[in-house]
C-alpha cells in the first residue's frame, strides 16, 4: 500500500503537470488577470491589502489538488494558506496539522451498552472538539434509548430529553463506524473520501462536491451535510485542527466523525471517549494484542451493527 503510494504519486503528479502545462493558457491568463486586479485593489508597491490577499489565497486554494496526491510541500503550502485565511476571516491563530498515520496502528472502538447511562457528555464534547455547526445543530454522535430486550435501533428513541437513566432501558451510541469495506467510499464520484492506513475514513473537504451520494450509501446514517457556513462561537473554537479533521468546513460539503483524527494521531483519546463519565467507550489499536480494545474483543460478547451487510465496521458493541 505504502510502497504503491510512494511509487505512484510522482507519476501522477508529473502527469497532471504535463496536462496543466498543455492546457494551462486559460488558467495562467486568469491567474495573471486576477493578480493584476488584486494589485490594483491593493495599491501599488506596498503589498497586498486584506481583501486582495484573501482573494489571492482563495484563488490558489481553488486550484489545489486532492489531499492524497499532494506532495509534502504542497500540503505545507495549503496549510499555511488555510491558517492565514482563518486569521484574516476570524482573527484567530489556528494550527492545521497534516500528521501522517502511525505505522502498525489500526483504530478500533468498542461501546459498552450495559454501562452507558445516556448522559450525552460525549455528544457535547464532540460538538465542541470538532467545531460542528451550531446553527443546524449538527452532531456526529447520537445516543438511542432502547427498551431492554430490543435490539433493533429503529425502535430506539434518538431524541430523548429527560432524566437518565430510565429504568428498564439501555443506551446505544451511534456514529461513523469507519468500515473497512465502506459503502460511502465506493459511492463517492470524486474520490473525496477514502480510508487512511490507520483505518480512519476521512473526507477531503476541498475535494468534495456535496453530491451526498455517500450519505445515501451509508447504512448507519453516519454522514452529515453542511447546510450552512460554519457557525461556531469563536471563543469555543478548537484551534488545534487537522486537515482531514476538525478544521472549519465550507457550506455544501460532507463531514462526519473522524475518530478525532487531530487527537488520535497524537496518541490522545477521541473527545467522546475522553468525555464519557461512565467509561463506556473503549478506543485503541486493533493491531496491538495487549490493547484494551483487543481485551474487549477477546473476553466480551461483542456484536457490530448490521454486520450482515458486510461493511466490516471497526466499531463493536459489548456488554459486561
Amino acid at each position, binding site marked *: 500500500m505504502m510502497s504503491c503510494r510512494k511509487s505512484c504519486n510522482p507519476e501522477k503528479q508529473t502527469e497532471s503537470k504535463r496536462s496543466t502545462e498543455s492546457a494551462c493558457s486559460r488558467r495562467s491568463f486568469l491567474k495573471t488577470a486576477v493578480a493584476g486586479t488584486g494589485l490594483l485593489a491593493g495599491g501599488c508597491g506596498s503589498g497586498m491589502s486584506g481583501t486582495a490577499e484573501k482573494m489571492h489565497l482563495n484563488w490558489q486554494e481553488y486550484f489545489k489538488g486532492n489531499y492524497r496526491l499532494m506532495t509534502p510541500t504542497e500540503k505545507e503550502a495549503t496549510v499555511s494558506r488555510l491558517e492565514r485565511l482563518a486569521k484574516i476571516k476570524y482573527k484567530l491563530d489556528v494550527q492545521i496539522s497534516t500528521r501522517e498515520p502511525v*505505522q502498525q496502528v489500526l483504530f478500533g472502538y468498542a461501546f459498552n451498552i450495559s454501562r452507558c447511562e445516556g448522559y450525552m457528555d460525549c455528544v457535547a464534547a464532540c460538538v465542541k472538539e470538532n467545531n460542528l455547526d451550531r446553527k443546524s445543530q449538527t452532531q456526529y454522535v447520537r445516543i438511542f434509548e432502547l427498551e431492554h430486550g430490543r435490539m433493533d435501533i429503529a425502535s430506539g428513541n434518538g431524541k430523548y430529553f429527560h432524566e*437518565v437513566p430510565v429504568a428498564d432501558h439501555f443506551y446505544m451510541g451511534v456514529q461513523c463506524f469507519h468500515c473497512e469495506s465502506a459503502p460511502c467510499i465506493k459511492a463517492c464520484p470524486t474520490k473525496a473520501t477514502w480510508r487512511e492506513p490507520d483505518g480512519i475514513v476521512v473526507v477531503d473537504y476541498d475535494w468534495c462536491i456535496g453530491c451526498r451520494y455517500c450519505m445515501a450509501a451509508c447504512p448507519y446514517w453516519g454522514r452529515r451535510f453542511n447546510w450552512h457556513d460554519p457557525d461556531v462561537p469563536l471563543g469555543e473554537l478548537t484551534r488545534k485542527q487537522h486537515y482531514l479533521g476538525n478544521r472549519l468546513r465550507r457550506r455544501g460539503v460532507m463531514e462526519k466523525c473522524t475518530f478525532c483524527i487531530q487527537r488520535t494521531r497524537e496518541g490522545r483519546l477521541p473527545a467522546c471517549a475522553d468525555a464519557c463519565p461512565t*467509561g463506556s467507550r473503549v478506543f*485503541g489499536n486493533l493491531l496491538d494484542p495487549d490493547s484494551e480494545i483487543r481485551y*474487549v474483543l477477546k473476553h466480551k460478547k461483542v456484536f457490530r451493527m448490521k454486520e450482515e451487510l458486510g461493511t466490516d465496521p471497526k466499531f463493536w458493541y459489548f456488554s459486561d
Partner: protein
Amino acid sequence: MKKNRNSEKMMKVCLSLTSLILLLFLGACREHTGHDGVTDRIKAAETKPSDQIQIDSVPLPPAKSIRAQMSYQGGLFWVEARKEKIGRFQCSQCHGNQLARIDQAVELAHGDIVNRHGAENKRLACKTCHDDQDRNFLTSAAGEKIDFDHGYQLCGQCHFRQKQDWIGGAHGKRIGYWAGKRTLLNCTACHNPHAPKFAKRWPTTFSPPLNQ
C-alpha cells in the same frame, strides 16, 4: 460402446464445468467476505508491533499517577493518585492517637458523606474499608493496610469481576491517551465510594430530530 464413451465424456465435461463454477463461486465468496477484513487483520496481529509504537506527542505517565501494584496483559500500568484529591488528607491530623471528642464533629467534618454503599438495609460500616487504627489507610478484609492511592485493591475484594475488567480494559477509563504508558483512573475517580451508584441526572445536551 460409442454411446457409452460419449456419455462418459459428457459426464466428465459436466463435472469439470460444475467444479469450475463452484471454484469461481467460492473465490467470489472469499473475495466478498474479504480475507483482509478487520477480523482477519486482528487475528493476524498476534504479537505486539515489533517496533514499539512511539508517538512524540505522548507524554510519560502524568506526574500525579502511581504505578499499580499489579500488571495487565501488556505489563505494568499506572493509576491516578488519589490522596491529594481527598480534601482533608492526612486523616491523622484529627484522628490521632487520642479519640476526638468534639460536639457535632461528625456532622461538621463529614456531614457531606451519605452512606449508600451496600444493600438498602445492610449498608457497609465505616470500618469495613477504613483502618480503625491508622486512619491514613484503608483496610482489607484480611486486616491489611491499603494505601488510598491503591483503593482498587480494596474495591476488588467484592467487585472482583469489575476489577478484572478494569485491569484488562473493559471497565473504567484511561487518562487522556490511548498510546504510551497506560494510566487508568482509580475506582474513586468516577464512583463515590460512599454512594457508588451513578445518580440520575439530565443529559448534558439533546439531539434534534433527524428529519429536521
